[in-house]
């Protein structure tokens, strides 16, 4: 009886989260295209130089993510919260991987699958409309997992990573890229002290759960992952959103009323500006955490001695051209 009740609660939670998140991401893709870069990556870019363009930062971030995951042609990748498929297509088109993305947004999945068809990649990449708690794939089907800018919508990271681990091969790599908040703010939230701005941000994104970095790492470790590397990329997100805001303002005439109501447009203006301030003042942080699935005690492949293979060096333009 208790188990049935819990399952019912979980179903309700999944329904709520799916609807709430969709309310943000089911806005027309043309609206997001009005401020994102050409890859439609709705997450932090990577700036090897302050003067990088948004396009260069997008490419750099994808390259860095691929490097951290040590992508190879034979990889089968799961992208949890795949958005409009920027990483899926990057992995498939640049490395020849197989890739599956999940999203709760029907609009995003339809977009990814239509692009896959248009590019003749239907047998290599697809997006499934499924909540992370309802994922169902064969055991150890994937050897790489990535989640970029999605954990912010997930209430229980222990459940997320415990659910993900069985689908990943032993020693498989997982990259978690997402926002956190400083412990001081998170502690207040756990004590029931909510901020007006915090509640508004959650409403804007449909649903949001910003954990602290150590909570994220705890969830990974307790789910059987060994943390290999952490990089604070908050400054990169600030620069990214500054460029989104510029583009949003430049494209006002094209977007307002033609694609979204003016109030929606202006709400996005405010939240982007707010995020810039949030990153600048360390109210909001952004991280990339690389880890691998382990069974403690087993002999493991030796790790590289330095970070050389998982860093991008400073430089103008798109670093992918140099590799």
């Amino acid at each position, binding site marked *: 009886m208790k188990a049935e009740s819990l399952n019912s609660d979980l179903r309700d939670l999944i329904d709520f989260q799916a609807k709430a998140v969709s309310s943000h991401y089911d806005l027309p893709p043309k609206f997001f295209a009005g401020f994102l870069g050409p890859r439609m990556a709705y997450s932090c870019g990577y700036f090897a130089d302050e003067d990088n363009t948004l396009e260069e930062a997008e490419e750099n971030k994808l390259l860095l993510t691929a490097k951290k995951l040590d992508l190879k042609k034979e990889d089968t990748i799961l992208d949890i919260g795949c958005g409009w498929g920027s990483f899926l297509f990057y992995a498939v088109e640049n490395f020849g991987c197989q890739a599956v993305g999940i999203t709760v947004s029907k609009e995003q999945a339809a977009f990814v699958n239509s692009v896959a068809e248009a590019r003749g990649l239907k047998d290599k990449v697809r997006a499934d409309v499924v909540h992370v708690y309802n994922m169902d794939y064969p055991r150890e089907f994937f050897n790489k997992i990535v989640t970029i800018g999605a954990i912010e919508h997930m209430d229980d990271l222990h459940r997320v990573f415990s659910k993900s681990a069985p689908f990943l091969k032993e020693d498989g790599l997982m990259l978690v890229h997402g926002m956190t908040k400083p412990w001081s703010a998170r502690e207040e939230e756990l004590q029931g002290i909510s901020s007006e701005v915090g509640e508004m941000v959650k409403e804007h994104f449909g649903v949001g759960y910003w954990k602290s970095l150590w909570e994220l790492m705890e969830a990974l470790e307790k789910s059987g992952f060994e943390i290999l590397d952490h990089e604070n990329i908050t400054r990169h997100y600030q620069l990214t959103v500054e460029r989104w805001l510029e583009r949003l303002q430049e494209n006002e005439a094209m977007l307002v009323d033609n694609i979204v109501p003016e109030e929606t447009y*202006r709400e996005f203006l405010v939240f982007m500006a707010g995020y810039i301030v949030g990153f600048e003042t360390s109210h909001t942080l952004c991280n990339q955490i690389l880890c691998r699935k382990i069974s403690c005690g087993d002999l493991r492949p030796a790790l590289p001695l330095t970070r050389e293979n998982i860093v991008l060096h400073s430089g103008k333009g798109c670093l992918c051209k140099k590799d």
Partner: protein
Amino acid sequence: MVPKILVEQPDIARRVNAVIGIELTGENGGYWTLDLTDTPVIERGKTKEPKCTLTAQVDDFRDLLTNGSVRAALDAFKKKRIQASGHLPTILKLEVLLKSLSKQNNVVA
């Protein structure tokens, strides 16, 4: 004229660290320049080039100062009762100042 809160807590101004223009329309309206780059200074008229400018009706601006609600400010902005030009993030840094002003008697020093 400088609100008391800025005299007592100049750190609030330093967090904004910018020149902001405030243009109020309607009765008793006008243009004010807030220089929050160092010791806070508020002057009538456009005395310095602002990093951003906030424009509103006097009554709407008074409501904003009175209730100090960020949600109310967002609603006003969405409905274009508050307009902003220039560097939008700087305007949002006024949040702390607005909240402080709404909590205190807005006495000028």
